[in-house]
């Protein structure tokens, strides 16, 4: 007799536990307001990445097309993957002496692991995080970027950007 009671109670317990689970899913079925999906390309206008989002490394330029990069090469040294290459050139300054300035700050986005060491260690705070995250391209050479804009010059003094 005992085992018979046990048999039937086990059935009812089982059904009750199953019903508890079905209540959870059923609740979500009747409340479509809980939907959390983000419809990505459509919500581009409203999609705002968090400030400091690590999209890519950029070099901020001001309105006079000037940046802070002195071409010291510390970021290149600190990068663990070799995704930064600094090419410098020597041009004469006002006094006529040749001075080393940045020619090309090459950044290989394809190799970057977003560790933030270049930005962190830059003594003149010339680098920053860009918010752009749509990096997909058809040709991988397009992922190699030159961070300083053509014709840009070094901003000698002034507040940080």
């Amino acid at each position, binding site marked *: 007799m005992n085992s018979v009671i046990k048999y039937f109670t086990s059935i009812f317990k089982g059904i009750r*536990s199953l019903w508890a689970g079905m209540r959870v899913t059923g609740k979500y079925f009747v409340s479509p307001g809980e939907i959390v999906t983000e419809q990505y390309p459509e919500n581009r206008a409203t999609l705002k990445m968090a400030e*400091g989002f690590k999209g890519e490394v950029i070099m901020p330029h001001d309105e006079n097309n000037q940046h802070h990069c002195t071409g010291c090469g510390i970021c290149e040294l600190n990068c663990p993957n070799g995704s930064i290459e600094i090419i410098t050139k020597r041009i004469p300054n006002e006094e006529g002496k040749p001075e080393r300035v940045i020619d090309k700050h090459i950044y290989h986005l394809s190799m970057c692991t977003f560790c933030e060491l270049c930005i962190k260690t830059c003594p003149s705070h010339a680098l920053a995080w860009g918010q752009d995250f749509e990096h997909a391209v058809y040709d991988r050479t397009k992922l190699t970027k030159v961070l300083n804009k053509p014709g840009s010059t070094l901003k000698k003094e002034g507040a940080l950007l």
Partner: protein
Amino acid sequence: MSEEIIKNIIVREDEDYIVNMGPQHPSTHGVLRLEVCLHGEFVNYLIPHIGYIHRGIEKMSESDTYKQIIHLTDRMDYLSAHMNNEAVCLAVENALGIEVPERVKYIRVILDELTRLASHHLWWSAFGMDLGALTTFFYGMRDREKVLAIFEESFGSRLLHSFNIPGGLMHDVHPNFQKHTMEFVRYFRKKLPEYKQLLTDNIIFHNRTKGIGIMPCETAVAFGVTGPSGRGSGFACDVRKVAPYGVYDKIEFKEILHEEGDSFSRYLVRMEEMEESLNILEHVVDQVPEGDYTARMKPIIKLPEGEYFQRVETARGELGVYIVSDGKKYPYRIKFRSPNFSNLFVLNTLAKGGKIADLVAICGSLDLVIPDIDR
């Protein structure tokens, strides 16, 4: 004693019915290959074949500075990225004898627990999916998203946020960090009962996990199974308790232990750990002191000659970092004792004699992250 437990001789025969689970298989959660010998539905033996995503992190670390190692340790157990980083940071800090600011210690603890929660969310999702309850996956991911949003706001990335650096943090956390963490704690306290109704109390789930893959405490000790998997067998191995680091010695929290050692008790340990993490978070969030986010460090860190070891509790168990330094700016040798490596090799002992479906349940309950095995 333990040698006897570990010893398992596998005799391969020609007529064995071998099924290769993996390297691409839904239930191995990554590129792990299990060579499973079946007898009907039963598993005779299984041999794990690892190394499909070996990236040589230990070797690469030998040519990286201590700051640069951080971005590699992120990628070992990517679900406990923060704890992995912390292990290296603590090792370096202890070697240099640096005292990090209190604020850093507290924030590290908060991040530890948030990462643990995110990791357990993913484990819960995937475990349910392994057992065929596909909806759990989306509920777990939904809640994990909230943690990742907190990460993204403060560190700029969601998964691999190389945020710890030797000496402190990369930069200060977002002003809303504490507020959003508390919001998440309140939110998740409401969702946790649903987890219980949906899976924990489910009769089918009980049948699938109770008494499956029983790992006695001796086996856990012999194989070095740590973390929630070990604590499910009653092996008190929580590094946060055994060898506290950060401010864990100042916080009151329970070490979750279950004695049964089956898949269900491993499951329960993780579920209760989630609750305990919420308790810790509630306790700690308001106590974060103001102050500096990093100690003063030299630009180039050189460890004095010697050997250094530091262990931390990741979401999956005990991670040990062993650094040999010859006084240069690169480590001479660095070795990681990764929890998943030990946790994987108990699989044959547990799954032997069970069914294929049990193998999947056991594999899920051990919560393996394959990149951590291969490193």
